[in-house]
């Protein structure tokens, strides 16, 4: 079943035409990885879905309900969690407060606390610490954990591996693989290793257009395709 | 071709308005008002003084337009320079007993020095912080003006005696008109100079101006200096040809808010707009209270001005002249590039 659908989405930032007609279908379950060169429009696509940027034209549908152009808080209430590139951790709030902020109903945090702590044991250890005191990896875990507090059917995660040590990235891959049993994930990732290790499907963006989509396994096997669109074939073959 | 024609029109308009303003004293005299006709509502000097006042405020508004309209910075301490000009004249003439010509030199030097100093210090800060620090500077000026009463006359202010030939309101009027014309040409020249173009680049996009290698802060200090000196001149003119009085309240936020109103109402960044704004605001200040018979509300004319101003901010952000120009250039656009051709291109 199609959970999230983008139809001919155009987005401008100021006078710049960033998304020039994105078409995309996100199936329920698993991880869909958005790939593409820098400036292809991956982050803009996520921001447009969550409602931080308004599309100038086109349709965005969640379970058939149009959300394009709605403010972010309404989009989020359709069951979409967002983990931005800079993680969006509130540095002046404690870990608990960061998580509590994401509650959409009273008691949600209590209901899910144990599960979240099982996935991210570090968060329990720093429960009463300010978000600003956490390391980059821990902040990433907090940001993802926060997106799990509410009943989100879809998580949009933007470049979680950025600035993290390889060993943390490996842990992240385990976490994402663990999470995809519970929720659908749309992942923007430049690190092809992480994309390959977690992705089920992929969608390649180039110059604001969606140019290719398919099964991740097929992309991993097709080094020509990688070279053409990603320029990462060497790295891809190594995996 | 259309554009140059428009520019020529604008010059004609300006020349026409000066020509219209020139014979006002003669007109008043011809109507018997000059002789102190007892039946007249107000003595003719009243109208001349109003005119002079408009000229002085128009210069003050021009100076503010350099900041808000051409550089995109909002100073809340602009009244400080008005007060500096006024007090320079008053103190040099009344306390040091020197000639009024000396006071002109002193006023220039004082407003130059202080605008460089205030600009250098405060322009290290951005946005709201800049607004607050300029406000604080003006407030320091106000408090000093009230406390150093040996020099400033304290809360009572200082009256200024001017040479006999300036006591005539007719002469004041002509001097004021000439002063405004000179200042308009000066400011216009500066805004169209390379300096002016850099300032506009800063207003449009400060980061890009920095990236292009301009020392943005230095340019802003330059803008504030020009603006401060011109505002100082307005203060000088105020004490010599208009009120003949320097008072501490000139340094409060009152005049700053008023000049902001004139600039925004007329259209920031247009030079002509702020002058029109000055005329509208100052004339309303005298016309509206006269309507008290209709409604006592008119006695509080500043309330009405405030409402007009808020409506301008909400619905007419480019002011009178800015909106008019946008209309004209849109109309021109349609003439020069007809829609059909535009679509093809």
């Amino acid at each position: 079943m199609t959970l999230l659908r983008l139809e001919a989405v155009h987005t401008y930032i100021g006078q710049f035409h960033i998304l020039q007609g994105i078409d995309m279908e996100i199936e329920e379950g698993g991880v869909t990885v958005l790939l593409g060169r820098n400036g292809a429009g991956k982050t803009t696509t996520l921001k447009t879905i969550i409602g931080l940027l308004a599309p100038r034209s086109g349709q965005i549908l969640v379970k058939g309900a149009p959300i394009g152009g709605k403010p972010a808080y309404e989009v989020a209430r359709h069951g979409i969690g967002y983990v931005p590139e800079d993680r969006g951790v509130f540095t002046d709030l404690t870990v608990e407060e960061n998580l509590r902020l994401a509650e959409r109903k009273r008691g949600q945090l209590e209901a899910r606390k144990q599960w979240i702590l099982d996935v991210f044991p570090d968060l329990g250890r720093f429960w009463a610490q300010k978000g600003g005191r956490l390391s980059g990896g821990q902040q990433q875990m907090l940001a993802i954990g926060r997106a799990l507090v509410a009943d989100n059917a879809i998580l949009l995660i933007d470049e979680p591996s950025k600035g993290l040590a390889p060993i943390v990235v490996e842990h992240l891959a385990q976490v994402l693989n663990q999470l995809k049993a519970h929720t659908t994930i749309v992942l923007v990732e430049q690190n092809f290793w992480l994309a390959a290790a977690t992705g089920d499907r992929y969608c390649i963006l180039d110059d604001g257009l969606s140019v290719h989509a398919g099964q991740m396994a097929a992309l991993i096997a097709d080094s020509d395709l990688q070279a053409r669109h990603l320029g990462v074939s060497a790295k891809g073959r190594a995996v | 071709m259309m554009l140059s024609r428009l520019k020529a029109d604008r010059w004609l308009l300006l020349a026409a308005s000066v020509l219209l303003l020139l014979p006002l004293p003669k007109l008043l005299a011809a109507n018997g008002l000059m002789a102190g006709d007892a039946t007249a509502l107000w003595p003719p000097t009243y109208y001349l003084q109003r005119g002079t006042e408009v000229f002085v405020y128009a210069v003050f508004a021009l100076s503010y337009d350099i900041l808000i309209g051409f550089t995109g910075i909002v100073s809340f301490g602009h009244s400080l320079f008005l007060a500096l000009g006024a007090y320079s004249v008053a103190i040099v003439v009344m306390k040091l007993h020197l000639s009024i010509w000396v006071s002109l030199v002193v006023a220039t030097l004082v407003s130059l020095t202080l605008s460089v100093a205030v600009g250098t210090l405060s322009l290290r800060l951005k946005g709201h912080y800049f607004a607050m620090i300029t406000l604080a500077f003006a407030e320091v000026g106000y408090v000093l003006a009230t406390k150093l009463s040996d020099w400033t006359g304290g809360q009572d202010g200082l009256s200024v005696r001017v040479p006999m030939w300036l006591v005539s309101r007719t002469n004041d009027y002509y001097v004021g008109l000439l002063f405004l014309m000179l200042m308009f040409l000066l400011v216009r020249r500066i805004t169209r100079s390379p300096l002016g173009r850099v300032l506009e680049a800063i207003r449009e996009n400060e980061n890009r101006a920095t990236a292009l290698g301009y020392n943005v802060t230095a340019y802003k200090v330059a803008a504030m200096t020009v603006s401060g000196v011109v505002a100082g001149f307005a203060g000088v003119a105020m004490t010599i040809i208009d009120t003949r009085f320097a008072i501490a309240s000139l340094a409060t936020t009152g005049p700053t808010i008023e000049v902001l109103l004139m600039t925004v109402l007329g259209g920031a960044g247009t030079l002509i707009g702020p002058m029109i704004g000055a005329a509208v605001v100052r004339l309303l200040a005298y016309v509206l209270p006269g309507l008290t018979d209709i409604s006592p509300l008119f006695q509080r004319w500043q309330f009405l001005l405030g409402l007009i101003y808020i409506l301008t901010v909400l619905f007419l952000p480019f002011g009178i002249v800015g909106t008019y120009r946008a209309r004209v250039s849109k109309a021109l656009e349609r003439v020069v590039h007809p829609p059909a051709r535009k679509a093809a291109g």
Partner: protein
Amino acid sequence: MGTPQLTLPLFITMILNGLAIGMLYFLVAVGLSVIFGLMHVLNFAHGSMSMVGAYVGLTVLRLFGNPAVGTAPSWAFAIAIVAGGGAGFLLGWLTERFLVRPLYKRPLFLVLLTLGLILVLDESVKIIWTANPQGLVIVPALAGTVSVLGQPFAIYRVFLIVFGLTMIVLTWWAVNRTRVGIIIRAGVQDSDMVQTLGINVRQVFSLVFAMGVGLAAMGGIATAPFNGVYPGMGGEFLLKAFIVVVIGGFGSTVGTALGATVLGLTEQFLPWFFPKFAAVAPMAVMVLVLLLRPEGLFSFSGRRAG
């Protein structure tokens, strides 16, 4: 010099006086600080709004007696504070909802708008209540003095300290212990991110604007027994609030409380040591802090709330 010896009892009275005034400054400034921290709106009309609240409170007090000669009953003063605060709350809410909201994307015009509001509000009170200062005598229950180490100390100032501390604690509790408080502190850092969590920050904006102005309005009435209520008080409050917020740092309630106390104490002690320049000193301090530490004296990690 003819100034008396600075004895310990006198010293303590001066500290208490400074605290009492500092509490008033806190009430007036805290809204300015949090509104700027959260919405990036520097509300130049904050002082004038506080003044309008003071006028409303006074008018309500008049329903029960003549406050100018002290015939208004003591309990009515409590009603006046609540009514003035309520009027401020409403004024703040309306301003955010109808005037500020359309301009969030045009910050320059937002500043211009709040300046225009000064003019409109200051003139409105002159239209409604005339330009003359309106007196308010301390109500009987709070009149008189107590003895502090042999020095007389006004009960009203004791009331101010208690009232102010209560408000500080309540504000601290609201910001640090409630869900709205968490949203405010998060929003001060990144209001877009708060939106993506499913929270309509705009609703909180209105509430914070209303609460901030409401607190300032309470501060407005509470100062009335000192100088009365008059059209110029808006401008004076604004300057004091600026100084407090600059010292304390924007967006921080704790910083505002500290800044307000520092200003209150400074104003008590400076005239003692530098009688001539006491009036310029607060401004000079503000200029210095802005130049040397624009994030505020009591801000330790950049912009923060809490």
